[in-house]
């Protein structure tokens, strides 16, 4: 089985090289060579699929002679987690990347074969080039089919922390999001090569960018949720290098999705849009470089297998080649841009791009600064969460302010009377809400200002939706409900975007609440003793030790009251599995829309006393709800119209 998998990879690599050559030589000329290239593409996909099937078969049949299977699975693992072992390790996740990329390539290329005849050969060649790179890495630096000199009786199993439903979705969505940027990048470069720099490449690219963007969003939010419920520190985002690596391309893609509207409406920012796509793809390569090269340490990184320099090489080729090509074509891209007024929606989009790319730069600098500092001064330093919070907090607040302003300013120019009328009621109501918060005891100015703007944004969006619904219901004689859905469906990109903004604000509220107003307390309790935090009182009732088929569990029960009213019991625990050396923590969380009560069992003594850490995290639920809203907004924005299926796109 291992041999079949390995040979399939070798053949796939050869097929990918042939495909690149066939596309490049056939471009613009011999359609039979192009047909052959298309077959090469499909063959590479088939071969990669054989390889994947071989690995999955080995995992499912417990073929422990394969080193990868022995390292990440064991006989006890349930089927779902057996499959997830596919992406648990370095070699497997690389194979997943190579396979998903070629599958995506087949879907895109076949879909566009007749629509973008000039771009397709070059775009396909570039995608296959990236594919060949990953196949090369698999064959020469991280072979998933490497065999052990003996066959162990059982494998090492999955790290217990990974046995969580998040493991089934978080890695694949992140990986898919990263590799998804290869498609828009390939089409952008193809447009530069063929000098077809009108709207064609943008139309092709926007939808695939949203797919990658959505996937990264799900991966990031799910990762945050997983960290929050599974790890024992009560937080959801540590500004860890690999977390940052997943955020940076997403921010750049968000900027792109806005500035692309400027290009379609006003013919502006063509060079900038090209640069953004190149940057998004480069950041996704950089992200995977960080994860697999051991340059920075993180809970997410794989052990160094020497593939770091290859990623840097790819990055150098991509950056030099793409920006060189962009420079060469800069005159064709220079636009007849004009703006009527400095105060217009166009300006808010420009500022939006500035802020998002600025935040990306700040995150990038903070992430690599330890390496830079050590190279320059020889001293190791840490750049932790407080740096990122202090620098990004104001930037993201400014983005939210902008979100509120932009939907009220029309395209081209804003008239002063319009502005005032549109701003007035949302501003007044937002002040009321902030004043309310001040009255109940919130005194720090930053969260007060932030909440003001969050409420402002939501109100301006509701106002837009209300106005549009009323206009449509009058125009089409529909009732308000029908008009509302009809409104959204008739203009999905615009209203999907508004829903995305609501999601962003919900996340912001969650972040503000849990960052500024989190409280925590630690205590050692004997059975019967209590501790208090805020309005909650927790009484330690007792400890239980029991064994299940795969775990040995120590659980503690606490009964909780809120302002004297009993609200139930919480059971934080720790467990040990036969294969893990350290105990794994399972926290107890009680979530309400207002706040989360979060209890961790830190340790215990032979005399029956236990040590607990308790946190109250306000508004955290906003993050998860906001993430879901963001996702559906993005889905609506992406959804194709029936009319659009005919021409490009």
């Amino acid at each position, binding site marked *: 089985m291992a041999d079949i998998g390995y040979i399939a990879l070798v053949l796939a690599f050869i097929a990918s090289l042939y495909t690149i050559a066939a596309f490049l030589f056939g471009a613009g000329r011999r359609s039979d060579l192009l047909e052959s290239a298309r077959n090469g593409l499909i063959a590479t996909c088939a071969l990669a699929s054989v390889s994947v099937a071989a690995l999955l078969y080995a995992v499912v049949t417990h073929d422990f002679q394969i080193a990868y299977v022995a390292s990440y699975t064991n006989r006890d693992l349930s089927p779902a987690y057996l499959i997830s072992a596919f992406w648990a390790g370095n070699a497997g996740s690389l194979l997943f990347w190579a396979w998903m990329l070629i599958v995506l390539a087949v879907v895109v290329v076949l879909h566009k074969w007749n629509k973008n005849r000039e771009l397709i050969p070059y775009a396909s060649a570039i995608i296959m080039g990236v594919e060949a790179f990953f196949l090369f890495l698999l064959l020469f630096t991280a072979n998933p089919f490497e065999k052990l000199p003996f066959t162990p009786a059982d494998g090492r199993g999955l790290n217990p922390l990974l046995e969580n439903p998040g493991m089934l979705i978080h890695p694949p969505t992140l990986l898919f999001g990263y590799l998804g940027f290869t498609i828009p990048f390939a089409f952008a470069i193809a447009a530069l090569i063929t000098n077809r720099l009108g*709207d064609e490449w943008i139309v092709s690219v926007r939808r695939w960018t949203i797919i990658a963007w959505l996937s990264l969003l799900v991966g990031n939010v799910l990762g945050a949720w997983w960290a929050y419920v599974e*790890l*024992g*520190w009560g*937080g959801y985002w*540590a500004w860890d290098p690999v977390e940052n690596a997943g955020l940076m391309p997403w921010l750049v893609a968000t900027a792109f999705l806005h500035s692309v509207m400027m290009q*379609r*409406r006003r013919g*502006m920012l063509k060079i900038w849009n090209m640069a953004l796509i190149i940057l998004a793809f480069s950041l996704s390569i950089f992200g995977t470089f960080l994860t697999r090269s051991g340059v920075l*340490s*993180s*809970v997410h990184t794989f052990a160094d297998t020497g593939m770091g320099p290859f990623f840097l090489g790819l990055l150098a080729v991509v950056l030099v080649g793409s920006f060189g090509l962009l420079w060469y074509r800069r005159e064709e891209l220079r636009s007849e*841009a*004009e*703006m*009527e*007024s*400095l*105060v217009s929606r*166009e*300006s808010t989009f*420009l*500022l939006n791009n*500035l*802020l998002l*790319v*600025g935040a990306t*730069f*700040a995150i990038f*600098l903070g992430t690599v*600064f*330890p390496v830079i*500092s050590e190279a*320059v*001064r020889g*001293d*190791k*330093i*840490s*750049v*932790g*969460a*407080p*740096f990122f919070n*202090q*620098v990004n*907090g*104001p*930037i993201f607040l400014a983005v939210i302010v902008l979100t509120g302003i932009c939907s009220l300013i029309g395209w081209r120019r804003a008239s002063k009377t319009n502005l005032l009328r549109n701003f007035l009621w949302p501003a007044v109501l937002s002040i009321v809400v902030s004043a309310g918060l001040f009255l109940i005891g919130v005194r*720090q100015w*930053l969260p007060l200002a932030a909440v003001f703007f969050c409420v402002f944004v939501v109100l301006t969006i509701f106002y837009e939706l209300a106005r549009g619904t009323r206009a449509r219901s009058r125009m089409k004689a529909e009732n308000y409900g029908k008009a509302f859905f009809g409104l959204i469906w*008739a*203009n999905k990109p*615009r209203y999907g975007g508004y829903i995305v903004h609501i999601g962003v604000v919900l996340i912001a509220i969650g972040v503000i609440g849990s960052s500024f107003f989190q409280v*925590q307390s630690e205590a050692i309790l004997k059975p019967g003793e209590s501790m208090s935090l805020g309005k909650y009182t927790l009484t330690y009732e007792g400890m239980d030790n029991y064994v299940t088929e795969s775990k040995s569990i120590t659980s503690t029960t606490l009964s909780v009251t809120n302002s004297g009213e009993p609200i139930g019991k919480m059971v934080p625990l720790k467990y040990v599995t036969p294969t893990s*050396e*350290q*105990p794994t*923590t399972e926290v107890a969380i009680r979530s309400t829309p207002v706040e989360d009560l979060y209890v*961790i069992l830190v340790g215990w003594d032979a005399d029956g006393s236990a040590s607990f850490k308790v946190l109250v995290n306000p508004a955290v639920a906003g993050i998860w709800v906001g993430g879901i809203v963001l996702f559906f907004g993005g889905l609506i924005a992406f959804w194709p119209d029936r009319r659009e299926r005919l021409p490009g796109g």
Partner: protein
Amino acid sequence: MLKTLVSVALIVLAVSIFVSPALAADTATVNSIAAKVMCQCGCGKTVLNCDDQGCTTREEMLSTIRQGLDNGRSENQIIQTFVARYGEKVLVEPPKQGFNLVVWVTPFAALVFGAGLVFVMARQWVNRSKTLPTAPAGGSAEADPKEDKYRRRLEKELKDFEEKGFR
């Protein structure tokens, strides 16, 4: 109006970056100090947040903090003890001095520079729309640049409408 808005925003940004640590300077507690030093077990988190099951340094560092507070030492003195023992890497964020200023200042400087660039280009675009020469068009003597600007815009919007429909 946009200029004032942008300038105000940037000033607020700058102030908040450099003032926020000062705002947080209330009484030092074990937790507030533990949030400022990195746990040395390799988990990449602060002593406050370290949840690594195999960690031995967390307790050690926590007791150093408690001892220091009991002996009446200030937050800064306790943190300097850690720096003397482990080096600058024990600090959760680089101190705002020397070479480390690069990481604090550069993002802000880049934003200011970017904002300036955006402003200059936007103004150029606005001026361009006011001073573009009249289109030679098909013979008619449209000497009026305003009329011409509207005709250009109308043509563009009609073309847009054909391609994209209602927006």
